[in-house]
């Protein structure tokens, strides 16, 4: 442990503080992990009189000069007298190796990105807009309680999806150019931070904001859904009670009806599956954000990144069709004709639908897809991710059960997507001229 009386120490913070020179006085010490903890009484115009503790990362030292950065990416230099001992410098600057140090660097960048994003106006605007959209779903009433509950869920999940996708894409599209514009990127990259660590840090920071926002929206939706459910059930009970009072049903039947209504309404109420559906939305946002990150490394402008990613988002929903057409066996004209007419005239098993079916006419089979069309389908299937697999929300909202194993499989596919698109982003950013 090295105690350093920083009397007379001069710290110059980087671009974020502009020309604010700060003088610090107080206690500094090397932490056991090699970072320098400093308690400063800052005398800068902006932070006058405030005291704060910062953890510094030392990346250059000489006999009486120290350069370091903080978790907030401030670049600071210090001319100190007396200078720290050589052993203290050695302890502070010793090379951190292993996964812990690697993870820590990324985490620091992620947390910085988190703070940066939360302070951005675009976040406040989008979040406020989401809450308005969220509230809109609860204001409107519909004919049946089932429809009202579905509307609440639709509004909640729609809000989560719109907010998550827009925020993920916009923030990734903004962050990289912004860091370059205000030169934070150069400051960070002069530190012992690799480019891919910077990218991962940024990505994790964005995901962290999205995760927290979705969590808040999910909790809000759960509370409102439960309240709506209680009101809807109360309404049903009152209706049954009025039927009982007017003698239209017996007491036993009324009790049975109450149980039945509760069982049926529960399908539209709060269930664990709804939270799993929120996880599916988060995974979808994670993938589209990774795609946006890959695009932003080659894009010349923020607008280009946003538009290109949103186009990919729509194409990704059509990827399943393109993939099926690519992987499906190529049928001849005659085979297509046979297949189309094979099912005609076959009655469905079980109960017969008693509607008059139109007169069967021989169908003209469509032309088999051209080579060019198959190539286009192939390109779409190979390049773009399949976003439709994440669209389980609709089924869950409609009352279908979603198993945890389905989410597990989705998680596996998302890991593959992230490896591909983050890998591509790392490659594209590795030697990019900044």
């Amino acid at each position, binding site marked *: 442990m090295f105690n350093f009386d920083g009397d007379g120490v001069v710290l110059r913070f980087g671009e974020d503080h502009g020309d604010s020179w700060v003088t610090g006085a107080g206690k500094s010490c090397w932490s056991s992990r090699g970072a320098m903890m400093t308690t400063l009484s800052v005398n800068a115009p902006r932070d006058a009189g405030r005291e704060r503790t910062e953890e510094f990362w030392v990346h250059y030292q000489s006999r009486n000069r120290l350069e370091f950065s903080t978790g907030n990416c401030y670049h600071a230099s210090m001319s100190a007298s007396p200078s720290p001992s050589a052993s203290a410098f050695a302890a502070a600057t010793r090379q951190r190796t292993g996964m812990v140090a690697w993870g820590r660097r990324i985490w620091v960048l992620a947390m910085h990105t988190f703070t940066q994003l939360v302070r951005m106006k675009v976040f406040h605007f989008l979040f406020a807009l989401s809450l308005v959209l969220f509230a809109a779903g609860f204001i409107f009433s*519909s004919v*049946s309680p*089932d*429809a009202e509950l*579905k*509307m609440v869920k*639709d*509004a909640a*999940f*729609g809000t989560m999806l719109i907010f998550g996708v827009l925020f993920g894409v916009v923030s990734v599209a903004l962050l990289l150019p912004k860091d370059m514009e205000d030169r934070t990127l150069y400051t960070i990259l002069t530190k012992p931070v690799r480019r891919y660590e910077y990218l991962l840090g940024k990505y994790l920071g964005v995901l962290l904001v999205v995760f927290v926002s979705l969590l808040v929206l999910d909790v809000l939706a759960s509370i409102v859904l439960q309240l709506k459910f209680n009101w809807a059930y109360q309404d049903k009970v009152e209706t049954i009670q009025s039927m009982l009072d007017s003698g239209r049903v*017996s007491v036993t*039947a009324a009790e*049975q*009806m109450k*149980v*039945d209504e509760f*069982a049926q309404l529960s399908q539209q109420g709060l269930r664990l599956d709804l939270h799993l559906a929120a996880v599916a939305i988060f995974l979808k946002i994670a993938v589209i954000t990774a795609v946006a990150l*890959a695009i932003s490394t*080659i894009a010349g402008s923020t607008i280009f990144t946003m538009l290109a990613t949103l186009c990919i*988002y*729509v194409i990704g929903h*059509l990827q*399943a069709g393109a*993939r*099926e057409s*690519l*992987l499906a066996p190529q049928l001849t004209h005659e085979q297509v004709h046979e297949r189309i007419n094979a099912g005609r005239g076959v009655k*469905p098993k079980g*109960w017969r*639908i*008693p*509607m008059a079916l139109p007169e069967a006419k021989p169908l003209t089979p469509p032309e088999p897809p051209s080579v060019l069309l198959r190539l286009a389908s192939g390109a779409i*299937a*190979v*390049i773009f991710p*399949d976003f*439709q*697999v994440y*669209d*389980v*929300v*609709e*089924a869950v909202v*409609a009352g*279908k059960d979603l*198993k945890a194993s*389905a989410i597990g*499989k*989705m998680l*596996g596919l998302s890991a*593959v997507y992230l490896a*591909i*698109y983050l*890998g*591509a982003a790392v*490659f*594209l950013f590795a*030697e*990019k*001229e900044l």
Partner: protein
Amino acid sequence: MSKHRRYQLAALLLVLVSALVRLPLESALTSDFRQQELLPEKLDTSVREKMTQQTFAASAGGMRSLIASAYELDAFGYFLQDPPRWDMIDKQYAICCQLQPRVWQYWDMHTWMLAVNAANYYATEGGAVRGAEGLMQQFYRDQGLSVCYRGIQHNPEKYRGYRQAADILVNPNPSVNPHPDFAEAAELYLQASKCADAQRPPAYPSRMLYRAHLYCLARLPHRMAEAYPKLRALFESGPQEDLPTTRTLLRKMEETLRIPLPERCLFK
């Protein structure tokens, strides 16, 4: 080739080569989810003509459920108008049904709006051209029934579809339903009572539907002989089945079938 170009090429290769791993995974997951009915059905191309560009794009972008809810809200708005716009209600609900054909609720509401509300509106309010009221009632009743049958085709495992179609067929209002079809309704009620969701605890719907099936049979002269022992067995199964309609129908059947007095269940 510059280093930067090499890295760009590496990125492209990563995306292309990884497709070998990715595509089979995606296909397997898609077919698994389709089997579990978790994924939305393919969007009917005809629905495109009925929607705006934006709503269609949003539907294709994974927000089909939200868009369907918005259309339902729109339909409800037309329902609140005075007089209600039945044509627009039909159109909006048709889009909802096409967007989410596996959601029974939309078929249910669409059927109810046409076969019950619209048909009764023309029966009671006389909103049609004079003399065409009966025609309009029939038209909307048939439209509603047709919607209901289409809904059953998409959701054959849900008892509510069969029940609703049967309810329309045996609607006691003679101006809307001048020729109740008890034979068809009996089949529908029976089918409904066999559905898995009707048999789930507390199994109240299943019993009720089976009873409705027997009531319909009891009203068909040529199937009374078949209905009588079944309805009698149901009546004797417990006090909860001792209902006024059951008693009335049993008494009527015993008289029609000329059951000897000592053998009649209500004689005891």
